[in-house]
């Protein structure tokens, strides 16, 4: 899987450049309300899209299966303030059990 290695290297370099730039660039260059707001919105929007594709996406179709039930369980546990790791494990267990039935 050579292409995966290329992706990983591009990702590592790209992420490092952002991290270093933040520490290096004079604050006034980037500290504009518009860029601040964009920075707040980007993770929210990308994570929303990632969840949707991860949970409902199939091979060029949408599929409703155990993944959606698992996401529902995850949402309930997050509302109950269950920590990250037990929440993820419970979601996985939900999907695994539904597939066993």
């Amino acid at each position, binding site marked *: 899987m050579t292409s995966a290695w290329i992706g990983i290297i591009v990702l590592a370099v790209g992420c490092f450049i952002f991290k270093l730039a933040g520490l290096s660039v004079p604050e006034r260059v980037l500290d504009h309300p518009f860029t601040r707001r964009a920075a707040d919105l980007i993770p929210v929007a990308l994570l929303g899209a990632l969840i949707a594709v991860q949970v409902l996406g199939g*091979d060029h179709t949408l599929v409703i299966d155990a993944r959606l039930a698992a996401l529902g369980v995850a949402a309930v546990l997050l509302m109950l303030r269950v920590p990250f790791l037990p929440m993820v494990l419970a979601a996985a267990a939900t999907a*695994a059990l539904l597939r066993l039935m």
Partner: protein
Amino acid sequence: MTSDRSVITDSLGVGVATGAYGISFGALATASGLDVWQACAMSLAVFTGASQFAFIGVLASGGNPLTGALTAILLGSRNLFYGLSLAPLLRLTGPARLASAHWVIDETTAVAVTRETTRQARLGFYWTGATIFVLWNTTTFVGALAGTAIGDPRDYGLDAAVGAAFLGLLWPRLTSWGTRAIALLAAAVAIGLVPFTAAGVPIIVGGAVAVLVGLRWHVSPEDAS
């Protein structure tokens, strides 16, 4: 004035809680087609959790690694603003800045930015960074080994765990009705595109549309009321 000891205690608490979930990253990375070394290389060299999950999420949904890298780098762009907040506190120059940049992530920023002195900001930044770096890489390795040993990841619901992990990362950011609407809009656009576009594209386009709408409508993390 908080004591140095309490800064270190905070750092260790955040570090241990965060470092532990490298185990889910390792397991999910191998479940989405990476080998153990690729999973470990990511935690060592990328070292920003949400972007790492995004990369394997795109791979798992059939996208190519460059699309995955682009999505993940966009998600990592927030570290730029963390760096901006940290710079005046940490006061780093030259080689020290270059060596420290790798640890500019959500958690180190959260622990360091609330400190009043450079000394305590550095204390929080390096203790949190070191704890997470050591644990995140160790647990990634353990998770990746476990992930390859168990057979079909779907039998264990690991594919469903990726969505839950993303929701866990998104949850603390859903602080206003506006941000919730933006997340839903991105999800809706992405879902709508899945049948018609190459894998990975729905995530980037859905995310971009929602960001533009959010900027246009002045959506912010706090409700205006």
